[in-house]
């Protein structure tokens, strides 16, 4: 009885609706994810005769597939939220991987040394992007379009276009291994996601990222050293990309200057599907991770259903379009409420 009265209250109902609208606006993409999971859990046994999807092993595989993209996409989320874009991350992956592999092979710096090199190269690349954007004043699109060629070119030059093998098995054992059954890349991605969820939502750095994306001018007028922070944001994207490069290097046991093509597109897709606005000022880490997972899930599903790999791009593309359109619809709805 009591609870029924509550439900009829104008203010309670209103607040609930408001909360619901906010909830949907923020986490709607999670439902898309869950929906895909449910559909796959039901469809896979029907089509393949056994539950191949909802197994710990397969789900870990999904996580593993998503992990590298997710790590880069977290960095991309910061960049896009600040109103920028980084098209050079794919090339950075190649360059950082090649240089780390060479450093380990030639200089014997060990596995962790290699990881540090990859991250360091990423950081330098990011700083360079930041330099072009903040000090030279190029638009992020142009600057990173340019460095996209530059970074990949440098990777090709130093490796002479060859794959680099034989930098020690230790590296792969550590960074492509597993801890209590969970692949290391998944653990890294989870840590990155948690850490940078906190950074975006609860630190000054995160707040300035949103503020700069909202209005660079106002943020500057408030006395914030905007240029330094933008440098930091691009460097962060570089650092995360470098870390992703190291994980990829470990997984493939070779560094190749042609790796990482179109990684930037996957990362942007994950961020945008997760609700990050390309015009800046809005972005969530949760959404981005979910976006990366959806892309990975769709790929996984196509593997399970033996869809020829050629179809995958088509379907992933359609899913991105569908997800973004859905996202726009629910945003419009929550505005009405």
């Amino acid at each position, binding site marked *: 009885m009591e609870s029924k*009265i509550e439900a009829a209250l*104008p203010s*309670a109902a209103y607040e609930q609706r408001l909360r619901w609208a906010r909830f949907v606006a923020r986490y709607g993409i999670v439902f898309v994810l869950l929906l895909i999971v449910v559909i796959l859990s039901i469809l896979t046994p029907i089509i393949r005769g056994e539950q191949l999807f909802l197994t710990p092993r397969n789900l870990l595989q999904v996580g593993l597939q998503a992990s590298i993209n997710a790590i880069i996409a977290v960095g991309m989320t910061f960049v896009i939220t600040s109103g920028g874009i980084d098209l050079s991350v794919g090339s950075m992956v190649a360059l950082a991987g090649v240089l780390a592999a060479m450093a380990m092979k030639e200089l014997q710096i060990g596995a962790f040394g290699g990881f540090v090199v990859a991250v360091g190269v990423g950081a330098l690349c990011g700083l360079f992007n930041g330099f072009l954007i903040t000090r030279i004043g190029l638009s992020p699109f142009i600057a990173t379009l340019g460095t996209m060629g530059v970074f990949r070119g440098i990777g090709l030059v130093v490796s002479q276009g060859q794959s680099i093998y034989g930098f020690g098995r230790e590296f792969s054992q550590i960074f492509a291994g597993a801890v209590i059954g969970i692949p290391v890349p998944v653990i890294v991605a989870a840590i990155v996601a948690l850490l940078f969820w906190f950074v975006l939502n609860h630190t000054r750095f995160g707040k300035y990222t949103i503020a700069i994306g909202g209005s660079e001018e106002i943020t500057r007028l408030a006395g914030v050293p905007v240029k330094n922070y933008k440098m930091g944001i691009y460097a962060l994207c570089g650092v995360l990309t470098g870390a992703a490069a190291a994980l990829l290097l470990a997984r493939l046991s070779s560094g190749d200057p042609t790796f990482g093509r179109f990684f930037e597109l996957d990362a942007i897709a994950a961020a945008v599907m997760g609700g990050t606005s390309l015009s800046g000022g809005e972005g969530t880490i949760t959404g981005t991770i979910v976006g990366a997972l959806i892309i990975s899930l769709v790929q996984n599903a196509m593997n399970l259903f033996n869809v020829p790999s050629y179809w995958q791009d088509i379907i992933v593309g359609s899913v991105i379009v569908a997800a973004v359109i859905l996202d726009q619809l629910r945003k419009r709805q929550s505005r009405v409420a």
Partner: protein
Amino acid sequence: MAEQALLHMHAITKTFPGVQALREVDLTVYPSEILALLGENGAGKSTLMKILNGVFAPNSGQIRWQGQAVVVHSPRAAQRLGISMIHQELALIPYLDVGKNIYLGREPQGVVPGTIDWRKLYQQAREQLDRLGLAVDPRTPVRYLSLAQQQMVEVAKAISLDARLIVMDEPTSSLTDNEVTTLFEQMRKLRAQGVSIVFISHRLNEVFQVADRVTVLRDGTLVGSKAIGELTQDEIIRMMVGREVADIYERHGETQRAEPILEVRNLTRRGVVSDVNFTLHRGEIVGLAGLVGAGRTELVETIFGIHPATSGQIILNGQPVRIKHPAQAIHYGIGLVPEDRKGQGLFLRMNVGTNVIVTLLAKLAGWGLIPWKQVKKIGEEFIQRLNIRTPSLQQRVRNLSGGNQQKVVIAKWLTREPKVLVLDEPTRGIDIGAKAEIHRLMRQLAQQGVGILMISSELPEVLGVSDRVLVMHEGRLVAEFDPRTATQDEIMSAATGAAKS
């Protein structure tokens, strides 16, 4: 003014979901005149002009242009008739030059279909600029021009359309005094050339400088049209803010002061409501005045238990009660018609019937089943009693006008037969007719013994409807007035804290 009107908009009505933007508004413009269209924000000026410009279609009403009934379905159609609109935000494209901007969307066609005769375009642009005495090369990109020059390019664009009527929406808001003077000279020149201008401005001194006639809108209705010579600045303000509406409030009968129904003692909610004391009697309407943010809404929210009091006492029918939750307030017979009726009071997507009986549902639906027959009966009864204008119980609430929506909210509470009804800004955004009906309804309820507490920011309403007026300032009750003797100024000075010391 016996000459034939250039434009006559007759009985224009426009409803947006939940809002009655315009209600049977008439607007007449004569040839060669500058008409100032005035009204406060939200009075419906822009909506009316957008209807004239074909951006919105009216729900009903007629537009006669030079005596002919016309339908304006797009800005382009308006242009073809000779109606041009200059928007507040300048509608010029900075990277295109002056000539291209003037003729954008109706470029003179070249020899080959789809091509443009550039020579003709610039030549014509030159002529238009000359007509306005604007010494600007039509090949100059617009971004190199000053704001005032850009404004004049807009005017050139308008007259190049052979506009007989130009609507200027706050053209002076970003101009300096010198530039305004220039603009006014051009406006007078255009008038001399037979062009009429509808001029929207908030600056009354400008209106007196340039306008021939004034039309005032308020709350989506026409207040009146008069020649500028017949008006003073004060009169215009009065027309805009509606102080003279006071006479529509008639107090019916004498108030019988009966026993107290709601007593509030030392009520405090930390930070927003401090030490409030008052008594509401059966059959009494108490008006609660004050500035926005003075704590009026917070006070009623405290009484209603949305945000419980930190200290103090509420006494209902002589019994001290503790209200910590709205459910308790409802239980004790208190009803709240909230300020934000769309957000808090109504389920916009649901139909009238559901909305009316929703608070009653818990009572009726003892077994979890909804007794539809009973619902229908009750719903229809209230529609009739409150004169809610709706085609049926099935009509979705958001398709009703603001006044009828408000009545639905009130009906919702009446189903529970409240002893105390709190109304927060009950007539905000509602047109005058519906306003009067709601006031009549409040009076009726009071006569039936309900105690009514009404928050209103409209002083004429407070004075016209209430039996007693309480004034809040910074979370405290600072004054009490008898509306039969009090003036708006007295209340205002109490509300602003000026009368405190």
